[in-house]
């Protein structure tokens, strides 16, 4: 029962960062499981929110796209893309939104690349592009980033800056006019990273069972402070049962 997968640990770690009353901008992978788990465990008044405009969807089955008909069932309002992004840019509601996003590359300040690997004009690998990621990271109060912990993904310099993090450190966002927000946590298959309040650089906050700070560092293309790192408590039986039985009984996302 205390055995669990890395994906389960990631979903639980993210769920713990969702506060009651948060409006949770999520995608359709682990981020959705994190939002659902939080709602069932610690944040019953949080609201599941998709960039396509569905607000507080009643999810009887897991959607496989943020435009899946499953997210349209019994929502509060059937919005449009324009409505959804305005909700994030809005002075009242934007403050309540926590965005969960992913990327192909991340740098020490939490800036993200999801557009292209290599030269933008002749890419080695073309990726899907921003979608709503740049928008949510520009507009809302907090973003949580999901990453696979690999050296080629944690890079000192991005091939393309799709999504703004803390830019180049203290005051970086303010200087550009990004008046609020910034990355809050990076959750990987090995660890939870946070950003130092003073330097805005990534540091290791916690590492999962069966790994060590040293191993985490070995899987990154840049060094981070590990002096504050502590073990992340494994999923509790309750967290695991909610995740497995109430959120993804068919293991469509948990695999």
């Amino acid at each position: 029962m205390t055995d669990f997968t890395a994906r389960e640990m990631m979903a639980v770690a993210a769920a713990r960062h969702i506060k009651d009353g948060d409006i949770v901008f999520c995608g359709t992978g682990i981020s959705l499981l994190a939002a659902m788990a939080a709602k069932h465990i610690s944040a019953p008044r949080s609201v599941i929110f998709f960039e396509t405009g569905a607000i507080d969807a009643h999810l009887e089955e897991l959607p496989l796209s943020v435009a899946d008909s499953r997210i349209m069932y019994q929502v509060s309002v059937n919005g449009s893309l324009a409505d959804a992004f305005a909700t994030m840019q809005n002075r009242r509601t934007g403050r309540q939104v926590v965005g969960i996003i992913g990327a192909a590359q991340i740098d020490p300040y939490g800036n993200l690349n999801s557009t292209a690997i290599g030269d933008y004009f002749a890419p080695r690998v073309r990726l899907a592009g921003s979608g709503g990621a740049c928008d949510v990271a520009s507009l809302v109060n907090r973003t949580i980033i999901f990453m696979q912990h690999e050296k080629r993904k944690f890079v000192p310099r991005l091939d393309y800056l799709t999504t703004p993090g803390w830019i180049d450190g203290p005051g970086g966002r303010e200087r550009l006019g990004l008046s609020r927000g910034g990355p809050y946590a990076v959750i990987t298959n090995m660890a939870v990273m946070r950003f130092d309040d003073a330097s805005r650089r990534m540091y290791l906050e916690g590492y999962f069972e069966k790994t060590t700070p040293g191993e985490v560092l070995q899987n990154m293309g840049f060094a981070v402070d590990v002096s504050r790192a502590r073990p992340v408590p494994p999923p509790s039986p309750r967290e695991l049962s909610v995740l497995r039985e109430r959120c993804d009984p068919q293991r469509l996302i948990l695999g």
Partner: protein
Amino acid sequence: MEAGSDKVMSLREAVKRFVQDGSHVSIGGFTVSRNPMAAVYEIIRQKIRNLHLYAHSNGQGVDELIGGGCVSRLEIAYGGSGRFAPTCVRFRKAVERGEITVEDYTNYQMTLRFLAGAMGIPFLPTRSSLGTDIVRLWGFDETMRAVEEKVPDKKLVELENPFGQWGDTKTVILVPAVFPDVTILHVQQADEQGTARIEGLSFADIEQAKAARHVILTCEELVPTAVLRKNPGLNQIPFLHVDAVVPVPFGAYPTACYRYYDYDAAFLKAYRLAAQDDGRYGQYLERFIFSVKDHAGMLHRVGQEQLQRIKADTSRGYAVGLDRR
């Protein structure tokens, strides 16, 4: 256009009339929902070339238009189809091979660009993308922009807030309007005048329609005007913007049409596999598009059994318990 019943026509006729080589086109829908797939297949069938395509995240339709060889330029926020293709396969290949030119925006920016077009203004402001490569790197260079009348002179413009700190905002990004030659949407219901009813999420369809010079609507059902007018609160697109109305059952297939049918996970998976190999992709095009006369022919190839499986539950709007692995 004014009211009148002369808008109802065949899809072949509608595409012939409003989509030409080099046209600037936008299509409705989002990833695997309500893409105007029948129209996409008809465009491929008519071998229209060099389209300038505008998309936010209209996954499947965009990938098939690119795969069909119809697109030379693309303005886009996201080239993916949810979990069926985190990056659309033919899109990715075409970019990596240098077959199409891409200019990147965000989902909100593309939405605002259609909205600006719908509002008839040159631009709209947002705080999104300040300091990113989306602002810094232009897919289309200044020379091309200066020559092309249908492309604005600049990609994105940074403007200091003329109202000081009003709205807690020092700087905004101005995103230029898009004015497509034609927007193609698939909707649940329309009448012969062109008033349209979309059920479920509307994505950016309404803005895309109003931004365009011409609009082709395909619809699951052509319904009497009196039916739509009985509850105007459920209608979204006034007939003023619409040129062609084409009834096409399963017109969004293999993407979903809320309350009518689900996406066909099996077809989309087979599509992805075919898309990964040029040879297999050629066979796919032949079998489902070129060797059939129209969308009904394509659906016949798919087979009744497969279509039955994705029929939507009327109260939930999707196919309950559908095998989607």
